[in-house]
């Protein structure tokens, strides 16, 4: 059993880089650390504007990298509003529609903030929006946890190629890409540094 297999978004064969040092990757950098910071700040303000304040907001990151992004957005909202909005994690492994295509992998923690999601405005946060299947699974997972008043979607990168009628409400960067290309998001929480890169990779990568 591949207990150590990383979930979506982790291209194989990339060694973990030492903290703070951008590694040599075969890709082109599309967002550096400062671009990512600016994008997240803008997304945070957009979320607040759209919601007309922080009331009823719950941020749920989709593991692995969505969780770190959700926490960063929560920190920015706290800076602006002076209030800590609830932030958690929503694992979608058990709701995937391609479970049978891979060896079974263990689910990651789902952590719903105290107070739940009933009657709240849930903002799902993920790193890359691609086929839309992850978001579809997340909506199913949410329905089993409660009934939010509204669900919105914030992503750092939208690379297109949707396979389902799903769109993001808040996008850090629209990144036109070919299906054969690979979009790699690296965040300091999980990878030691912040960068978004795009590279040629025959076969592409599920996101």
């Amino acid at each position, binding site marked *: *059993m591949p*207990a150590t297999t990383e979930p979506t978004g982790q291209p194989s064969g990339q060694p973990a880089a030492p903290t703070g040092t951008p590694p040599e990757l075969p890709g082109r950098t599309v967002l550096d650390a400062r671009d990512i910071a600016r994008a997240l700040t803008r997304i945070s303000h957009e979320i607040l504007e759209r919601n007309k304040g922080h009331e009823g907001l719950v941020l749920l990151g989709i593991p692995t990298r969505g969780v770190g992004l959700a926490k960063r957005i929560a920190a920015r909202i706290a800076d602006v509003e002076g209030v800590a909005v609830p932030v958690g994690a929503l*694992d979608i492994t*058990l*709701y995937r529609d391609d*479970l*049978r*295509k*891979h*060896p*079974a*992998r*263990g*689910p*990651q*923690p*789902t952590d719903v903030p105290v107070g739940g999601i009933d009657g709240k405005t849930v903002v799902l946060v993920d790193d890359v929006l691609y086929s839309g299947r992850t978001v579809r699974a997340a909506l*199913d997972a949410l329905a*089993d*946890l*409660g009934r939010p008043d509204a669900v919105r979607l914030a992503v750092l990168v939208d690379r297109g190629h949707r396979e389902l009628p799903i769109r993001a409400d808040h996008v850090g960067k629209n990144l036109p890409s070919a299906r054969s290309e690979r979009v790699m998001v690296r965040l300091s929480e999980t990878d030691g540094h912040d960068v978004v890169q795009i590279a040629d990779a025959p076969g592409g990568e599920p996101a």
Partner: protein
Amino acid sequence: MKKHLLSVDDLTTDDVHTLFTTAAEMHDVQRRQVKKLPALRGRTVINMFFEDSTRTRSSFEIAGKWLSADTINITGKGSSASKGESLRDTVLTVASMGVDALVVRHGASGACQQVAQWIDAVVINAGDGTHEHPTQALLDAYTLTRRLGTLEGKHVVIVGDLTHSRVFRSNVACLTMLGAEVTVVAPPTLMPSGVDAWSASAGFATTYDLDEVIDKADAVMMLRVQRERMSGGFFPTGREYTVGYGLTRDRLARLGPDVPICHPGPMNRGLEIAADAADAVQSAILEQVSAGVAIRMSVLYHLLAGEGAV
């Protein structure tokens, strides 16, 4: 992970840790209002129980249902087995209906191994004779890991009817795999024959004297006296067994406040375990039951959800 779960020996240490990690997530589902995950939608799991069971069968059934599998129960009594159909014919008949997994309990040791050779479906051993009961061992080790933090270097004392206990056989394998030191205690008549060679190779200790080891226990596991499997006089009276090997009120007083008490159930209160001990703050017996659902969800998920699973 191997295709079937017939014995604890089918699992590596990594497999066990993976099963525990997944079980912890499954445990959270038990606290939800909507206890349903779609992971095994469209899969069919048949529980074939040729021996009586309450918690194993119902927890396998709940585990399957919470993962959205279709679960069906077949029991020895009330099935064609009671009309004289052989195990092989019953199994092949059921397999022909298109099942993905068979959860089998049978009175004969090795029955599940045999079943796995007859059919393509995943076979999970839910107790075969006096041989193995791997999901029980997993849930016991999982419960103790949650209570104690780790099993590494912990001293687990297993007491009771070892000769007839499949729980004991699977538990010794699982606990020692996870680094626990295991001492097994039984009266000479209920100590399995040939235990000396086995304990030497598997790395556990044996003794006839419970009082000698109970003070040094980090966890105590009491086993049921299985009268239905006993054909002769293994001890003079129940009272005498209790005095020598029961977890009595006096022995309970010697256990520390953080020493979990386990029992796989069903309990003979007053025989191997006093009511005070069964209901003590240290008792982990009901935690074992809820862990049983989580562990069985984890096992069903890992054996049935992924690529290549049947």
